[in-house]
């Protein structure tokens, strides 16, 4: 326990903390009272989310894909979605409630957020269409990629390779150009910096 030194600031009131601390942790800390089912979630999804993320959470245009991509994480082009990649359901509830819909965030009630979360689970084939999500059963949902993450291991896996005395001369045989940005030509036009112009 650390001591107060300056006496600045004032006590935060419970209503203020409740308004701003809406974070939900993987163990369910922060989950509010409430519940929602897949059918209510579908309705809320169509009204608030489908114009960007598709009727079935499959994505629309260049907007993020929310469902699908199972088993693609070792593919050349992985499809990372809630179902194929996200480790925790808490993140879905928390992020949707706090930051979606894009451009009109913080309009969803807790019950709507439970329902939309249930619909996202259903769209990803994780629950059946009669599923009801609530604070009580929230942490029982099994997310497919929950074991798909390791804590940063660069110090163990990369430092032994890269903390070395580097070569200074005749390090390799001659080198050849293997890739050129001009072959792709996707850079926006820009004026070159001409010191004489």
């Amino acid at each position, binding site marked *: *326990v*650390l001591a*107060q030194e*300056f006496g*600045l*600031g*004032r*006590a*935060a009131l419970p209503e*203020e903390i409740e308004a*701003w*601390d809406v*974070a939900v*942790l*993987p163990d369910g800390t922060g989950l509010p009272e409430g519940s929602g089912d897949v059918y209510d979630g579908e309705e809320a999804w169509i009204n608030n989310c489908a114009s960007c993320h598709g009727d079935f959470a499959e994505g629309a245009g260049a907007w*993020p894909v929310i469902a699908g991509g199972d088993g693609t*994480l*070792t593919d050349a082009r992985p499809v*990372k979605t809630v179902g194929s*990649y*996200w*480790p*925790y359901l808490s*993140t879905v509830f*928390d*992020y949707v409630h706090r*930051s979606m819909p*894009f451009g009109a*965030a*913080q309009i969803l009630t807790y019950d709507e957020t439970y329902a939309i979360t249930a619909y996202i689970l259903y769209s990803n084939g994780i629950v059946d269409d009669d599923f009801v999500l609530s604070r009580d059963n929230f942490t029982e949902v099994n997310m497919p990629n929950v074991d*798909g*993450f390791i804590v*940063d291991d*660069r110090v163990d896996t990369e*430092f032994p390779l*890269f*903390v*070395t005395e*580097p070569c200074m*001369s*005749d*390090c390799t*045989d*001659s080198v*050849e*150009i*293997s*890739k*050129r*940005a*001009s072959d*792709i030509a*996707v*850079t*926006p036009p*820009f*004026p070159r*910096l*001409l010191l*004489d112009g």
Partner: protein
Amino acid sequence: MTDQSNDAPRKAGGASRRDFLRTAGLAAGGAALAATGARANAPDALITEVQPYASFTGEGVDATPYGMPIHFEEHVVRRNVEWLTADPISSINFTPIHALEGTITPQGCAFERHHSGAIEMSKQEYRLMINGLVDRPLVFTFADLMRLPRESHVYFCECAANSGMEWGGAQLNGAQFTHGMIHNMEYIGVPLRVLLEEAGVQPEGKWVYVEGHDASSNGRSIPLEKAMDDCLVAFYANGEALRMEHGYPVRLVVPGWEGNMWVKWLRRIAVYHAAVESREETSKYTDLLANGVARKWTYEMDAKSVITAPSPQAPASHGAGPMVITGLAWSGRGKITRVDVSTDGGVNWVEARLAGDPLPMALTRFYVDHVWDGKPMLLQSRAVDETGYVQPTKDQLRAVRGLNSIYHNNGIQTWYVNENGEAENVEVS
């Protein structure tokens, strides 16, 4: 390349005065003089004729209460790449590092990365909450924060995705685009530790969660040790208030760590028993490896460097002879101790000259005073930091991580410089 014909000054008689000045200026600094060892065949009218600026007056001191760069420098601006993101609100732009010198980034062209746009908030509206596993949950106004002890430090802020488009090969043509998700500023603010001590962290508190006032919130979890070490709650950058797009009036500075954690428009600091595992540390800012497993909590930005000139946007149009090769190096794990430069694609290296005394977790400027023989070059730079870590090649990184980790690409950059001094982003093998 611009017109650098030898006879440009002789056309002046038939041209307007404005045209004359422009063409004369081109020839004076151009290849014609460089190639002949700076020997003029005719007197330089910029010297022999009285110029308007040497006769008439310039602008008064009341013309510009807060100035912008002179219009000749209008190319030194942020640029974006439309196809990188679905919209320009949750998107990125790039610092013109190819045109900057030294280490301090001018705020007006320092890159932006927002997830729900740059919000406008006044100091009067600003509130900062500290809650969670603390003895005294607190609310601070901006005026409160201004009464706490301040520190100043220079640090780089590099987006975790800087160079991310280059994992699969040479793609964008210019240091601004390949390495410009970075800025380096002198910050003044209150140590995060001081605020946490005012609230009193309880023994069960292991993680500090920080989030912004904007709709995206950008919440991230920081281990308590880092929060109590060197993080700053910053109000000023490069001598003045933060720019709106950089978090006005208050942002978090997390030295050496990925830019995503530098939460802007900081609204709440919460102490929890565990990491929140928010969207920005699960779905995003996790690094997928070739085996389908992803690294999380890859906080530090490893040692990295890039040659800013010559580079694709800054060609060496002066021809053979003396040439300044310059660039930037940095490391999230401490000071830069050395930068090596190669002109032959990594076969041979020379040690560059570091400008000034490198600061930990800050941009460091390097120079090689090169004499160019006019033949094509494959330019590379290789940073070394105080841990002994040597900046790897892209192929070395790919051998460990594969092609889909998106973030933390600190591989060595190669510029192909042709006989005309024009540079291109390439890879070599």
